[in-house]
């Protein structure tokens, strides 16, 4: 008996407590709409947000941070709907949230030490000793303590952001492209620090990145976003189960005719063959032992979801 391949997975976290719950968030701009986006960041987990440029990742993050006003839906931080909070309550709640942006966005005349002092004033639970420990480990202190933000390299700027945000006592970190533009060694250092921070079960993170290999290393859940919509969300392990079947025309027709692919099959046409996204590679190979089906990477899945046609 042939078992039916399941449809694209969607994240089901059951009753797990969430630090961030985004429900049907909508935001309209001229030429772009973030359309009813929902996602959860379960406590103690890392959720990777994946999508092309302009897919809506940054708009979603801005919505969560409150720098844009959403047109519909709701955002809950630590179980509280942010729309129902007063400014003071929101500030109180935001002490548990920190943000790392793609660029080092402090006034460029501030020095490294002054930025840390500013965080100390901003966050009630800022831990100066933890900051110094992170900053020393990352090579910021003592040599760059007096350096101005404008004189820091991209990597050092990112390290400064990380040292400050991870020492600010927050439980949820939102990171927008934290490893973009960094060399592989600094990238690995950044990921190590994030992994270490995540060892505390109270900590959670939402990370957007184009560098999907980084997310493969660190994410527990993945959310794929395209054209302002979530097109797939799953546990990181679900990607390991997926495959890319390389099929000739007749083979593709046969697979489709067998009706094994539930709801919709994502197929990318090449000159002489087709790539098809398979949600359960092992089951597919049991059913079609003669066909080629490679293990899928996050990049493969993204390319198929974005560029593939739906059959």
């Amino acid at each position: 008996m042939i078992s039916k391949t399941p449809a694209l997975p969607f994240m089901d976290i059951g009753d797990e407590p969430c630090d961030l719950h985004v429900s049907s968030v909508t935001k309209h701009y001229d030429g772009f709409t973030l359309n009813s986006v929902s996602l959860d960041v379960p406590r103690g987990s890392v959720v990777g947000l994946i999508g092309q440029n302009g897919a809506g990742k940054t708009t979603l993050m801005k919505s969560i941070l409150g720098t844009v006003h959403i047109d519909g839906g709701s955002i809950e931080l630590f179980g509280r709907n942010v729309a129902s909070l007063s400014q003071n309550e929101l500030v109180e709640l935001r002490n548990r949230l920190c943000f790392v942006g793609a660029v080092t966005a402090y006034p460029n005349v501030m020095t490294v030490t002054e930025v840390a002092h500013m965080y100390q004033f901003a966050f009630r639970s800022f831990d100066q000793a933890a900051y110094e420990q992170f900053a020393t480990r990352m090579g910021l202190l003592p040599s760059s303590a007096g350096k101005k933000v404008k004189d820091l390299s991209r990597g050092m700027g990112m390290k400064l952001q990380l040292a400050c945000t991870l020492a600010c006592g927050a439980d949820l970190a939102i990171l927008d492209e934290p490893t973009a533009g960094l060399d592989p060694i600094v990238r690995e250092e950044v990921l190590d620090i994030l992994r270490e921070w995540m060892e505390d079960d109270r900590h959670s993170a939402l990370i957007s990145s184009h560098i999907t290999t980084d997310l493969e290393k660190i994410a527990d859940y993945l959310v794929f976003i395209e054209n302002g919509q979530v097109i797939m969300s799953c546990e990181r392990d679900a990607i390991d189960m997926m495959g890319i079947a390389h099929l000739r025309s007749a083979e593709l027709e046969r697979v489709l005719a067998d009706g094994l692919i539930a709801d919709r099959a994502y197929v990318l046409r090449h000159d002489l063959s087709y790539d098809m996204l398979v949600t359960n590679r092992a089951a597919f190979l049991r059913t079609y032992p003669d066909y080629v089906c490679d293990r899928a990477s996050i990049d493969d899945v993204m390319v198929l979801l974005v560029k593939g046609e739906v059959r």
Partner: protein
Amino acid sequence: MRALMYADWTIVRRVFLRYLLITMFVMTPIVVMGNNDGELAAGTAVVTMCVMMMTIYLTLSIFSFDTSNDWEQFRLALPISTHQVVRSRYAFAVLTSLGTVLLGSALGVLVELVLPLIHGSVAAPRGFVIIFLAGIGAALVGLLFLSIEMPIVFHLGIEKARMAISIPFMLCMLFTIEPVRDALISLLNKLEHVEAALGTPAPLFAGGACAVILVYLASMRLSEHLYANREF
């Protein structure tokens, strides 16, 4: 809010000397010429110019740093509300003006001490108290100008609001129009009568100060409303 005021302070520390030098450069010929024709008291001229220019320049220069590096957007990711952003900037402008009053007063006194050594005498030397009060008056005018400018800057951002920054100065140009100038002279004459009737200018000065404070607070409320609706 302390975090934002600290950030503003670090910026002001770096640009302060530059603006002080510009102010002194502009001030010097005016002070010297004023002293020579014997009609302008050098000390009050120094404090007035120093306070007016420095208060407005320094406050607006902090706004310029908001847009560099996306700081304007990033600071809202800190545990800081939009109202706190506005209030911290208004509070910082007041602190800046008070700082410049002290600095300007000291410079004014210094000028009144030094100029006699160069020119032999100073027209109508006023002493520290009068110079300081002139400084307070200049600070109030500076804050009044900022009351007009800051809501526009908070609403549009400094880049789009550059033209609007000149609005208070353009309003001053209205006094070159004869009917407006006559109306102002008439008002000043009436105030002189009131002062004569009261026997002291203190109530008028206090009343003016209260009016500026009310306008400043109203401007802050307007900025809070406008800034809360802004998106980044």
